[in-house]
């Protein structure tokens, strides 16, 4: 065990996979000698060279297209899109090509790519460097969305993702990059499509992802002092998400809050809360509540940004409303 940040944990996972499997290679902007905007690929270029840690121009569609093509002939590419906001420039490659290929060619091709991208707000990045984009991709059959909240999961999920045969969008929340935790230095994997119960509780279930897991845990700790017992679920895989774990928890607590940083309309929160209402209706003692970003772009000024993004207090409020 070693204390690592999420940056170091993902770096460690990439290093392990690159050392073990020659088919794994990285491509993206400034990932080589610079080590990426956030340092996630630091040191890998020195170890694996230009061919396997490949700097690209600002050609996002070509980055993803190249990854897909290489994956079609047996490689295991891990492309990086510097900020998730830029996924719009390669949306077609992901949605129409990577995600549909296995289906439309009836299994004759696979597209095992892991698209790494920095996502989320909270650091004054402004409208084009702060969005949560999972909603853009929730409606895409064939695509997997993975979103870790802890260093240990970040490493295990990255290893599982590289070993998986499906195209994966791997969301790395910028505000969590420096979060530290104990990480096993050897190779291990964390299962995809399996949520984690981050905190056990009996009164209410909070289903969260990425930074909202931490906000929800903080809310749960404070509410515990008031005698409220909160169960926090970290989805980890957002698509397809783990219905079994979520439904079992809601059937136990009878109350559910869904916490997700992206705008409320049409997003992950909408999907999870609708599914809970559909499947667990008879167990519910209160309506399902959503804690999401407001329906606005992310403004630059940090004081304004705070008003748009959800936080611990919003989670607390929603829990109390569910219990009222």
């Amino acid at each position, binding site marked *: 065990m070693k204390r690592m940040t999420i940056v170091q944990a993902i770096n460690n996972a990439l290093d392990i996979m690159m050392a073990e499997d020659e088919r794994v290679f990285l491509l993206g902007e400034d990932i080589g000698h610079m080590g990426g905007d956030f340092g996630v690929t630091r040191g890998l270029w020195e170890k694996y060279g230009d061919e396997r840690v490949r700097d690209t*121009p600002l*050609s996002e569609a*070509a980055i993803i*297209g*190249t990854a*897909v093509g290489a994956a079609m*002939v047996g490689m295991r590419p891990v492309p990086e899109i510097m900020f998730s906001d830029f996924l719009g420039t390669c949306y077609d490659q992901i949605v129409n090509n990577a995600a549909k290929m296995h289906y439309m060619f009836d299994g004759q*091709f696979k597209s*095992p790519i892991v698209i790494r991208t920095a996502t989320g707000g909270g650091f004054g990045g402004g409208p084009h460097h702060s969005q949560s984009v999972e909603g853009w991709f929730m409606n895409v059959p064939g695509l997997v969305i993975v979103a870790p909240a802890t260093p240990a999961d970040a490493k295990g999920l990255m290893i599982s993702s590289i070993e998986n045969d499906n195209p994966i969008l791997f969301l790395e929340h910028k505000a969590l990059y420096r979060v530290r935790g104990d990480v096993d230095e050897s190779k291990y994997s964390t299962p995809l*499509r399996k949520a984690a119960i981050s905190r056990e509780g009996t009164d209410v279930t909070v289903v969260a992802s990425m930074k909202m897991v931490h906000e929800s845990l903080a809310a749960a700790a404070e509410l515990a002092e008031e005698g409220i017992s909160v169960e926090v679920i970290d989805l980890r895989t957002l698509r397809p998400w783990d219905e079994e774990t979520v439904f079992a928890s809601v059937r136990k607590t009878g109350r559910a809050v869904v916490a997700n940083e992206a705008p409320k309309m049409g997003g992950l929160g909408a999907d999870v809360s609708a599914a809970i209402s559909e499947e667990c209706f008879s167990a519910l003692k209160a309506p399902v509540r959503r804690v999401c970003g407001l329906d606005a772009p992310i403004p630059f000024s940090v004081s304004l940004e705070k008003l748009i993004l959800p936080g611990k207090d919003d989670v607390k409020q929603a829990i109390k409303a569910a219990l009222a």
Partner: protein
Amino acid sequence: MDVLLDLYRDMWVVRAFELGLEREFKKGNVPGMLHTGLGQEAVQAAIAQSLRHTDAFFPDHRCHGLLVLAGTPGEKIMAELFGKATGVCSGKGGSLHSADPSVGNFGDNAVEGSMMATALGVALAYKMQKRDDLAAVIVGDGTSGRGEWHESLNLAATWKLPVLYCCVNNGYAISTAVGKAHATENLYEFACAYKMPSIQVDGNDIVAAHKATEEAVDHIRKGNGPFFIEYKTWRWQGIFSGEFRPDDEVHYWREEHEPIKLAQQHLISSGIADAAQLEQIKAEVEAQVEDWITFAKDSPAPDPAKATSNVYVGWEIAAR
């Protein structure tokens, strides 16, 4: 046998396949949209002739005939276009998305031009895997407005990748003339800007198209990086509502400069074949195509289980 006679037969495969398909489409037997390769037979024959099964090619939306020339049994391509269980993608891809890796067919992408980017990845992987195979991408003139088109040329040139660009310049994207929508009507000039060797060739002259393609492939296989071929040609199909091009233009391309006629003249005048032989080739191919159509018509619809299979590798999707 002379390679030109082979190519002549190949051109007839494209012609007869598309004429048969068009006839069935008009009868309502072929679902969806239909884009035919009629008029572009020489381009398709030339490309198919120069590739091998270990190469990868990305066909465009008019390449039905080329898919057969590449080696997939004609009945499996025809059945795919009819949406049948016996099709090469079990009826899930259809005209615009038929793939067959066993012959190097990496599938069309009906988002025109997107596979310019995908081809880069195949070529990069082949280079990393130290194979001397190449990735060919066949695209229409209209795709040269796409961002991926330019991203692809830039990166293939920068990384010296084994990519063969086959740009089928038939003068129009649906109704829009090349010169009206692009900075040049000579699309190879874009390749020049990316410092990529290129050639513009008469795509209706099978001898010229064949020679250019062979030379380009040879250049790439020697490890020299990408090559761009612009085939100047013309498609018979106008727009969905009919013909929109001027009469003299139609006359030139369909009568005076029609690829199969040009090939016949060449074969006969150079003594490679006589008219009777050429007639026999045509008749043989036409009969074969009718067999494929019968096969497709008689084939069953896909198994309903196919509707939900292979969305994910290894995972089932939720039931309704």
